[in-house]
Structure formats: C-alpha cells, structure tokens
C-alpha cells in the first residue's frame, strides 16, 4: 500500500485540474461534491498507508518514493520524491480529514456564490499543495508546496476580489509571507552550500559536519519562514486581515492546516534544531510572546472572526513554545487537537454568519442559542476544548505543552498559564456575546433578520468536529501506555525529543492547575459578559489594535517606503532617469539634424566625397611606397 502513497496528493491535483476545465459544466452542488469526494478518497488512501506503516516495525516506518528527477543541475540533484514516515502520515491524515469536512461544509456555505466551482478548484489545489508540503522528502519540494499553499491562500483570501478590503488583505498576506519565504530560501542556499544536498535524510545525516554558527543561522532562517507562514511575531499581522476570505477558507487555511506548516517545518527539522540551544530559545520566546500578545488582542475584538484569528495566532504561539522547549510531540498533539476545535470554531462562526446574513460584529448578535441550537452546542464544545477544561482534548494537549515549558523554565510556564487563562476568558466572551444575552440583532440592523439554523450539510461537519474536539485527547493521554502519539512519533524525533522526568504526583498537580485555570477563565468570562455586552475598559484600543503593531509597520516601514517609492517614481525617474534618456535623445537628434546637412541628395557630391577618400588612400599608399 505504501507504493500507492503518490495517490494521496494526486487525487486533489486531479480534482483541481478537472474542475478547472469542467467545473462550470458540473454545476453548483455537483462540483463541490466531486471535490469533497476526491479529498475524502485521499483521506481513505492515507488511512490505508497509515495502517500499512503501522504494521511495520517501529524502526522501519520510513518510506521514500521517487517519482521523477526534477532538477538535475550538476551537483544539485533534486528529485520529486515523497517521504512517508510517522510525521508526514500524521499530517496527511489530519489535513485530509479536516479538509474533507470543510469541503463538505463549503458546499452548503458557498451555495449562493456565482464562482462556486472556482472556489473548489482553489480548495483542491490547496489540499494538493499542502500534501506536497508535508510529504516532500527534500527542502525544495517542500518549498514548492509552501509556495503553493501561499498562492492558494492569496487567491482564497482575495476570493471576493471585487471587495477592496479582500483584495488588499490578499496582497498583504502574500507580501508578508514573502518575507518569511525569503528566510526559507536563504536557509536552503546555506544548506546546499554547506552540505551539498537538500534532501532531508542527507541533511540530517550530515548535521554533525555543520558548524554551530551556520546551524544557528540555518535554523533561525528556517524559523523566519515558519514565522511568516504561521503568523508569529513580528509577521502575524496578515492573519487577522485574512479573515476577509470566505469562512471555510479561514477555517481550512488560516486555522487548521496552512498556518501549521511552520510548526510542521520546525518539527521536520528537529534534528537540526536540537543541536542549537540558542535557536530553540528564540523559538520558545517568540512563540510565548506571540501567544500572550495575541491572547490579549483577542480579548478586545468586536468582530467574531478576528477574535478567532487572534486566538489562532495565540495557539500557534503555544505550538512554537512547545517546539522551543523540545516538545515536538506536544506541538504535534496540540496541532491536531487545535485543528479540530479551531476548525469547529470557525465553522460555527460561519454558521452564525450564515444565519445572520453575513453579520460578523458581535455587538449585533446575542441570544442565538435558541435559534441555532446545534451551532451553539458545538461552538461551546469547541470553547471548552480550547480553554482546556477537562476532559476535552485541549486540556490534554495544552497540559502537555505547559508541562514541557515548566521543565524548561518556570517563567515560561507562568506566562503560558496566564495565556491559558486569557484563552478561556476571551473565547468565553465570544460565546456569551454571541449565543447569550439580549437579542441585539433585532434592533441594530436596518432590516429585519431572522436567524435560522444552517442546513444539514453544514451541521454534519460541525458535529463530527465537535466529537473530534471532545475526544481527540485520547490519542496521547499523559498516562503510561496511553501515550500512543508519543510512542508513534518517538522513533522519528528520538534524541531531539525532551524526556520529562516528572513524577506521577507532579503530573497530577500540573493537570489540576490547568483545569483550575481553564474553569476560572470560563467563569470569569461568564461573570463579566453574560449580562452585559459592552465593557470599554476591558476592551482598550491598545488591545483592539493588537498593540499597535500594524500601525507601527505602517508608520515606520510602509509610509517611508511609499515616500521613497514616490520619490523614485515622480522625482528621481522624471528628473534624473528621464533627463538622461531625453538628453541622449536630444543629443542624437541635434547631432543628426546637423549631420543631415551632409546629405545633400546630389549624387555628385557623394561621388566627390568618394573620390576624395580614394585620393587620400592613394596618397597613403604612395607615401608607404616612397619610403
């Protein structure tokens, strides 16, 4: 079955190509169903591959499949090869599963859109790129997938490109990602010039021969790429704006899959990371700082999707914190559980918007639980999961991360715990503002709206994801012999993985602390926001604007750049460049005008010139002969 691994990315690619040509003909629901089916089939194939891998010995669970030699240039031999191992198949499984559910949801969500089939072309192409990203066996192929998801993200964020804000949000996402890609590219150049190969196995095998400074540089540059893709400080600013895209896109790309690519990359290069402590520290601190900053920002958002976006950034920060503390398994575990509940949150938000005619402002919601019972129920499940209330999946995954952070440094743990409290609080605020309290949508809008529950095709994914959010924790329980994921991934990370040496009692203490913090946060939210929906002092502008980071970029980078560009375009180009060009032209024209007088049109004049020349040549010859 392993040999059929190439089918996994091939199916979405085929879907994208076929839909690009025949999507319009297939029509509105059919094209969506076709795309969903292909992604689901991809998931099924992934399951079979996973089972095949499971049957092998734990030391032999890596399979390399070369499809074609892609770029043979001298010493640079890059193959289009797929690497199937524990990490990639784990990613494949959760990517295809979540994608399939979101595809299904999109059939309902997008059914009124005139560009229905194009949407699914992009979605399928995105899934293909993501699968290439995670299944590649070398940096270049990963980069191809990396750019592919970036491009799909751009197209999907700007899907409603006739809206100005959507178009500029797409551009912003693309440009900010470029900065990270730049780091990735430089890292690849460094790797190739140092090691001479770009395949993962080759690079990891030669990790001992890389100097410590170079290694730090490589890992930090790769981390820059991850920062761009996974929206960490300082490049997180594109993600909130990316909420301009259709909600399934937000769920699929900007919560569940693409933004985790940075975490995946860090996990993939764990053999490199584990050799450089300074890089690990940087990753951990950046991750925690991002988590905290985003969590505070999320507390003050009025827009439901922006709140969720900051929540995503915060959770990604958590994952990087895990990576930075050497807890790769914890990072992957959080990634998987987060995929479930964050997708669920976004789809729930989408369902709310669907019911309220695309209303995103929470100040015009409230009391919706009576009108959307399923949406409200699943949304609350997701809230409890992300808050870390036991026994939801978030409790276990976040506990794992915090425990590893404590092992590294109590300060990290303290900040992490504070962030966990904030997480429970801000999502509780969103839940209460949306589903409880007065029904503000009755009075605020100019027109009469009647909230209604979404169709079944949208509710089914919600329910499935809710089950996942509730139960996904079982794959890696912090008890002996129940940590399946850790044991599964252990051969891969091996020595890179930090080994915890806490006693059972200590572990219990950590869990109690986590649970208490989560419940406290939830209760705090209920107490503050259940009755009231406006507390300006708790939502300061500083947090609403995410610590003025966007403003800082605008003031210190964008505006000077624009001024420089304007200067170049309107002053330098007009005066200097054009001056040189026009000067040359004028010079040529003037000299031409003068030289033109030589062309009298009288043949005999020309003949006279020729004769003079001939006489001069003769004189020269005569002088040579005479001497």
């Amino acid at each position, binding site marked *: 079955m392993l040999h059929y691994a190439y089918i996994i990315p091939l199916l979405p690619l085929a879907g994208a190509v076929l839909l690009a040509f025949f999507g319009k003909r297939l029509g509105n629901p059919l094209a969506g169903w076709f795309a969903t089916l292909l992604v689901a089939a991809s998931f099924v194939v992934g399951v079979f591959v996973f089972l095949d891998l499971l049957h092998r010995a734990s030391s032999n669970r890596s399979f390399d499949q070369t499809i074609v030699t892609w770029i043979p240039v001298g010493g640079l031999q890059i193959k289009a090869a797929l690497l199937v191992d524990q990490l990639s198949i784990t990613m494949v499984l959760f990517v295809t599963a979540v994608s399939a559910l979101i595809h299904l949801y999109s059939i309902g969500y997008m059914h009124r859109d005139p560009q229905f089939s194009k949407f699914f072309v992009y979605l399928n192409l995105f899934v293909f790129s993501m699968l290439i990203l995670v299944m590649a066996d070398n940096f270049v192929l990963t980069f191809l997938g990396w750019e592919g998801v970036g491009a799909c993200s751009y197209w999907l964020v700007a899907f409603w490109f006739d809206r100005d804000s959507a178009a500029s949000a797409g551009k912003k996402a693309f440009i900010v990602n470029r900065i990270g890609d730049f780091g990735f590219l430089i890292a690849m150049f460094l790797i190739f010039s140092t090691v001479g190969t770009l395949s993962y196995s080759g690079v990891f095998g030669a990790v001992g021969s890389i100097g410590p400074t170079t290694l730090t540089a490589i890992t930090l540059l790769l981390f820059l790429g991850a920062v761009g893709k996974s929206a960490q400080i300082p490049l997180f600013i594109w993600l909130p704006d990316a909420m301009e895209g259709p909600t399934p896109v937000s769920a699929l790309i900007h919560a569940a899959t693409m933004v985790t690519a940075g975490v995946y990359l860090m996990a993939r290069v764990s053999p490199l990371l584990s050799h450089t402590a300074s890089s690990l520290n940087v990753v951990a601190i950046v991750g925690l700082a991002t988590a905290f900053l985003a969590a505070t920002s999320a507390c003050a958002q009025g827009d439901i999707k922006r709140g969720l976006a900051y929540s995503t950034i915060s959770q990604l920060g958590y994952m990087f914190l895990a990576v930075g503390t050497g807890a790769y398994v914890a990072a992957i575990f959080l990634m998987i559980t987060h995929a479930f509940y964050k997708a669920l949150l976004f789809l729930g938000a989408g369902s709310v918007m669907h019911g309220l005619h695309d209303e995103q402002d929470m100040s015009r919601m409230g009391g919706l639980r009576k009108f959307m019972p399923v949406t409200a129920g699943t949304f609350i499940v997701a809230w409890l999961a992300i808050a870390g209330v036991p026994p939801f999946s978030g409790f276990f995954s976040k506990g794992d991360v915090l425990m590893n952070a404590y092992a590294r440094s109590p300060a990290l743990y303290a900040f992490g715990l504070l962030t966990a409290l904030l997480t429970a609080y801000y999502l509780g605020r969103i839940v209460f503002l949306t589903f409880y309290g007065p029904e503000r949508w009755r009075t605020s809008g100019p027109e009469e709206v009647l909230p209604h529950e979404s169709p079944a095709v949208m509710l089914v994914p919600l329910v499935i994801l809710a089950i996942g959010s509730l139960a996904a924790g079982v794959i890696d329980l912090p008890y002996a012999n129940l940590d399946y994921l850790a044991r599964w991934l252990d051969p891969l990370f091996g020595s890179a993985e930090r080994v915890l040496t806490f006693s059972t009692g200590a572990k219990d203490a950590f869990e109690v602390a986590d649970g208490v913090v989560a419940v406290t946060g939830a209760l705090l939210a209920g107490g503050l926001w259940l009755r009231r929906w406006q507390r300006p002092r708790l939502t300061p502008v500083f947090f609403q604007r995410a610590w003025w980071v966007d403003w800082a970029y605008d003031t210190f980078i964008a505006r000077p750049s624009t001024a420089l560009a304007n200067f170049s375009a309107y002053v330098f180009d007009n005066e200097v460049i054009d001056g040189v060009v026009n000067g040359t032209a004028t010079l040529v024209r003037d000299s031409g005008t003068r030289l033109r007088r030589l062309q009298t049109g009288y043949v005999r004049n020309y003949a006279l010139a020729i004769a003079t020349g001939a006489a001069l040549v003769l004189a020269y010859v005569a002088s040579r*002969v005479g001497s």
Partner: protein
Amino acid sequence: MPPVPLVHVPILAVTITDATVFAVSAAVIVAGAIGVIAARNPVHSALMLVMTLFGIAVLFVEQSADFLAVVQVIVYAGAIVVLFLFVIMLLGVDRLDVMRRDPLPGQRPLALVIGAAGLSLLLFLAGVHWVTGARSVAGPAGGPGSNVEKLARSLFTTYLLPFEVTSVLLVIAVVGAVVLSRRPSKEAEPEPPETAIEPEPEPEQPEAETAPAAVEEEPAPTGIPGGGS
C-alpha cells in the same frame, strides 16, 4: 616560356608594330574618353564610349587576352552601350546638356583638383616597381594552349563558385530590371473620384495600354545576350 620579368622590358626589344598599335590605341582610348565627358549630346558620348571600348579591346588582343577582347566587344559594345542608346532613344532625353552653369558651387574646381591629384598619384604609383610576391595563383597566362582554354579552365576550377554566384547575380539583375521597368498596375494608380453612377469597366483601356508597354519593357531583357555570352 621563362617567367616574364616584371617590369623592365627595354623598349628596343619591342617591335615597332607593337609600339605603333599601342600608341594608336592609346590615342583612340584617351580621345574617346575625353569625348565621353565632353560631348554635349548623350548619343555622342555613347559613340565615343564605343570608340574607347574598341581601343581597349585592341589592347587586350595586344596583351594576348583574345577572349576578353571579343567579350569586351560583345558585352560592352554589343549590349551595354546599345542599351544606353536604346534608353536614350526610348526616353527621348537626347537633348543637349547645359554645361555652363553648375548648381553645386565649388563642385567643378574641386573635381578638377581631386582629379589632378588622383592622376598624379596614380601615375606615380604606375611607375613604381611593385613586387607583390604572389604569382600564378590561378595558372599561367602565357605558354602553350589557347587563351580561351586557359581562361575557361581557371573559371571552371579555381573560380567556379564566383562564376556560379555571378550567374545568380545576373538572374537577379534581370528580374530586378523587369520589376523596375514594369508599369505600375492599374490598382496602384490613383483612382478618379467615384461618381454616383456605377463605374463601367472600359474594355478598350487595357488593350490600349499593353501595346506601348510591350515595347517599353524590352530594355530590361536585352541585358541577357551580352551578359550571358
């Protein structure tokens, strides 16, 4: 035959007939040449040119280039100058030139000065003892065998490619001349302003045009017999 010494053939070794032939021919040539540029009537110029050409043909014979002498007469006298005269007569441009006034100031004195300078330089160079060092590249000119045979052997072996290229050049020249002297087709001519009445095709007009055209197109192909010989 021993190699001919380059220059210094004492004049006494030359027979009187040869000297006479050269002198007469040279006189004819120079007189003809001056006649060409001095005659006010182009037809007279052409006749003077023929005179010069015959003189040169005689000098060719004198230098054992029999074939070239005949070809000179056939091509130059028989074709090129005939063509000149034909065009002169056809176009009716045989009126007298105005020689007095030259619209280009300074052209005449400059031409004379440069001509004098060039002539003196050429004469100086003609008297200089030249040694190029290269000889008999294409085969000897003297010795046994007819001049035609030697020339032919040279043309069809050493100079085969130039020979063939020259034939291509001739074809191009013929085609070019035909195209140039062809009357512009009816479509190219400016049409009279169209009236409201539907334009009637006039059957007589093409016939009336083709007759003089047939005569006028002749100068182009006449280049062939001379050039091809």
